[in-house]
């Protein structure tokens, strides 16, 4: 078409584009339509979750009456009853423990490795590790179960932490490789000429600069650990159960208690939503970093 490489000669009196370029005529109308479209789309993604939060504060009669909508007198009874039942609180503690330990251990392993891959352009080695991103978790679940069961470890926190690291180690590497590759190498070289060892240059110069990236990657890793269902479904017992499993078990024996179910779902989603609101900018950057820089 008309978009070949040779740019057409520009009109001699180039009109200075204000702000953004490439604005067609009829600008007003489009801005309006775009605003409406964006609002509609946002509502489509937001409303189901709003519905869940609202249902958590409804009585069971109100939950199962779709006519009630979003205007009703909120009650905390659902939260009270699930907290009194006990398991959810214990599970949140377990999820917190497993999430923090597995994330910290993963960061300790993955950040130096990401530095090596990013700094020395070891892409072949890097992609070997990132294969873990492709391997379906379930194809490891079977051998893990087989081996861990023989070691008598099923039900222990150790197995949960190890299995959750399967997700977070590649995730943190994925994010941090492009981060380190983007740091100017001159900083480390300068540190080296000033007498720091190779490790010292990493430790004192690159690592502090990578702190924001590491924080983002760790937060994402924690969220994915918090959300992980399959590993805990297999490896956790009543004592070590994490929140998604508790929620799942809740469905089977309390499927009529919609209010309680929604309260439980809300309870375990709220920390994630807070993380999303607070760290929105960084989390988006983290989620998209590995992908766009390849």
């Amino acid at each position: 078409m008309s978009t070949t490489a040779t740019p057409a000669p520009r009109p001699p009196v180039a009109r200075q584009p204000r702000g953004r370029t490439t604005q067609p005529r009829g600008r007003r109308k489009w801005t309006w339509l775009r605003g409406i479209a964006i609002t509609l789309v946002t509502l489509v993604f937001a409303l189901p979750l709003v519905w869940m939060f609202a249902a958590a504060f409804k009585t069971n009669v109100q939950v199962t009456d779709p006519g009630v909508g979003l205007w009703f007198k909120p009650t905390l009874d659902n939260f009270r009853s699930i907290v009194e039942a006990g398991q959810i609180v214990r599970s949140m503690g377990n999820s917190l423990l497993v999430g923090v330990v597995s994330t910290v251990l993963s960061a300790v392993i993955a950040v130096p490795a990401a530095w090596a891959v990013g700094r020395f352009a070891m892409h072949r080695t890097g992609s070997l590790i990132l294969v873990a991103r492709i391997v379906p978790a379930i194809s490891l679940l079977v051998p893990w179960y087989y081996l861990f069961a023989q070691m008598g470890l099923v039900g222990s926190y150790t197995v949960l932490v190890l299995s959750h690291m399967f997700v977070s180690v590649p995730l943190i590497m994925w994010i941090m490789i492009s981060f380190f590759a983007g740091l100017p190498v001159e900083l480390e070289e300068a540190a080296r000429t000033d007498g720091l060892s190779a490790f010292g240059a990493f430790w004192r110069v690159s690592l502090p600069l990578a702190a924001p990236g590491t924080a983002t990657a760790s937060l994402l890793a924690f969220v994915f650990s918090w959300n992980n269902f399959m590993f805990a479904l297999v490896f956790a017992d009543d004592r070590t159960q994490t929140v998604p499993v508790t929620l799942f078990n809740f469905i089977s024996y309390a499927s009529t208690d919609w209010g309680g179910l929604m309260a439980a779902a809300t309870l375990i989603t709220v920390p994630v939503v807070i993380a999303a609101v607070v760290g929105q900018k960084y989390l988006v950057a983290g989620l998209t970093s590995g992908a766009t820089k390849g």
Partner: protein
Amino acid sequence: MAATEVSAPQAGTRSSTPRPGARRTRTPRTFEQANRRLKWAMLAPALLFVGLMIVFPLAFTLDLSLTDAFGAVNADKRHIGLRNFTDALGDTRRFWPAARRTLVFTVGAVILETVLGLALAMLMRKPFRGMRLVRTVLIIPLLATPVAIGILWLLILDPTNGIANHLLEGLGLPRQEFLGSVSQSLPMLMLIDVWQWTPMMTLLLLAGLSTLPEEPEEAALVDGANAWQRFRYVVLPMLGPTLATALVLRAVDALKTFDILYATKGAGGGSDFEVETLNVYAYGLTFDYQEYGLAAAVLVLFTLFIIGVVVVLRRRGGGKNA
């Protein structure tokens, strides 16, 4: 520490190691040696983890797939050759329907997510008021706990009490069974997947769009290309690599979907196995039936299938991405 010669497959010369003479550093040669030792030392824990937790278990799965392992995990097992594979591949009742569902689910959901995600990204490309809020809303579905999302949609799509049927009635449309019906379950779960993951596509593509240079589009505008032409012949080709990467990422994750399927429809993917994908099937074989050998064979096939998809997609995408 002695200079142990760690055999480096490819000396990482590309980015950083200062070449002798290239820079006025004190002792460049030791730098390079120190770097070479250090980079492997830094990689060692990650490699060890991958070896112990991924490579070894995968090898174990491969071995297990050739045995008749069944029942208790410490029961005796014998090697029986490829019989598990022939059993799986000859199973037209569970295995092949599950494989078909996996493919239908993945292809359908990912195509929808890509088209919608691209449209949304183009819509949100230029800054607007409330951008921050919209991005926050978009990120929540990706971070929310899948099991919670599953039960949330169970409530919305409940055949008798759900808001979805209430809305359909309001529009004068017939009520639906949704997840209660065998034929509607898989399409419904695909829609839930689309709801959950289209934002991911949008965010990835927005990030890709923000890195594109503006000049080619300006040139096309000056040449008189209309909005569609600028999108089709200028933006889309430049966005190609990002699009390919996003597609591979999403396809790989969609193939592996488990949480929402299992949380909404339970073991076996429902009474008629209506949402039983290879993932759910393999899970059931292992933990409901203790058919470890057969499950391992299914998983080997499944993993090969995923690797095949990635290879094909990457070749077609023409990128070294992902």
